[in-house]
């Protein structure tokens, strides 16, 4: 039995985020009334449910909030991915983002390190995934 990697399927609400990623740009939502950025995309701002979400481009630069090294596959779909660097990145604008670290050895990863976007195109799914690598200093 083979397990294909699960890929995201954009929805009408989230499409602007995925459309931008395809162009190697990062677009997330912002709520002017709360003065905060929002991720993941929603129809209303979390907490206040304000109806004022707008799309803004961000650089995608951030800091590694935490990570782990999955030494065993997290599911059969990721059997060939180990060791997999499961990461949480905090964007400079505030929100956190679930992702993977690439182009780095597990022993070189440090919580708190600066990280930058790596745009990974998957043309067969018409999707670009956003992974991260160390930004260097």
């Amino acid at each position: 039995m083979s397990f294909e990697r699960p890929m995201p399927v954009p929805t009408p609400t989230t499409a602007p985020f995925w459309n931008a990623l395809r162009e190697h740009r990062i677009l997330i939502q912002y709520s002017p009334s709360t003065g905060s950025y929002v991720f993941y995309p929603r129809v209303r701002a979390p907490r206040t449910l304000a109806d004022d979400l707008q799309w803004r481009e961000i650089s995608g630069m951030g800091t590694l909030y935490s990570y782990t090294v999955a030494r065993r596959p997290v599911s059969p779909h990721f059997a060939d991915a180990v060791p997999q660097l499961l990461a949480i990145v905090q964007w400079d604008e505030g929100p956190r983002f679930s992702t993977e670290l690439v182009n780095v050895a597990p022993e070189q990863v440090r919580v708190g390190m600066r990280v930058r976007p790596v745009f990974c195109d998957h043309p067969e799914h018409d999707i670009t995934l956003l992974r991260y690598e160390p930004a260097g200093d």
Partner: protein
Amino acid sequence: MGLRGEAAIVGFVELPTEKLSKARPQTFLLEQWAQLAAAALDDAGLPAESVDGIITSHLSESQLFVPSTVVEYLGVRANFAELIDLGGASAAGMVWRAAAAIELGICDVVVCALPAHYITPVSEQKPPLLTDAVYFGASSNQYGSPQAEFEIPYGNLGQNGPYGQVAQRYAYEYGYDERAMAKIVVDQRVNANHTPGAIWHDTPLTVEDVLASPVIADPLHILEIVMPCVGGAAVVVASAEMAARSRNRPVWIKGFGEHVPFKTPTYAENLLQTPLTRAAETAFGMSGLARDEMDMVSIYDCYTITVLLSLEDAGFCEKGKGMAFVADHDLTFRGDFPLNTAGGQLGYGQAGTAGGMHHVCDAARQIMGRAGAAQVPDCNRAFVTGNGGILSEQTALVLQGD
């Protein structure tokens, strides 16, 4: 505000655990529900006809209308029939909901059951639907699910990875003593060695064994993670009047708290300040009892890091000092801080959501004075936690004997 402490756990059943990987089909979950209910009522010494409330979680045979399906099967006329979906917090969540229904005067006897022998009979005529839970744990891979779009594609699924991330962040903020983390498992193992039915009853363990076991998701070793098991557990919660007719010492539900702030820990405001902080504060406040009045604690322990954060956030030690607390205290049933005296799930095995009920049963068994070789002398008060998802939904209970 809150509970008056006039409803009590009066009976319970906790089945021995078996490894999930070796389990053979037995009965359906609905049938297990009835068997568990009968066993818990028998333990309480109350007739089945006295039941007027049930609380259930999901059953594989029945996706929708679960409470009425259970009620019909049991032949109960329920004034209160609830479905609860809080993962490992479901058990503790059931107990306070049952107590609330009783104190509101709508029920006298509520059965809360979590059948968890998940390997059920199969038929070629009705092949089982392979649900996402098989591969994606608590994450949903359905179209429109935030997890399907923003978590699963990056491998952020299941439990080991996220709990590893939590532990890694802890190490960054407060430092990390892997021997203290291993000691949590080792002390609980002593308790499991004295508890019939525990998966690790016959297997002693050392700190060196834990540290020599394979790392699954850094920094967590396989022996810091629960063994997936099958089993099942149930409790009977009753009014004071019915408790007086029960054969056990009543275990009064004096206080509870519950807090549910997120699903995926990426979106936690502060990954290291768990929802239990607020839940425990509410529970102790409601009970009028203090932390140092607890004779034992039964803390949800899917991973060592869960225990560590819970001890801190429930207020048993200062934030960031959990590892020193663990190193400085004897956590066995003989010790100065008895924790998970039936082995915890790390020692007893985790039978799915019934794992949450392990902690309720642990506390009830101690307060009823039925813990046998692992009995804590003069045990009258206990603190219990439930934890669902990845520290996403947490419940606290304060219990007290007569």
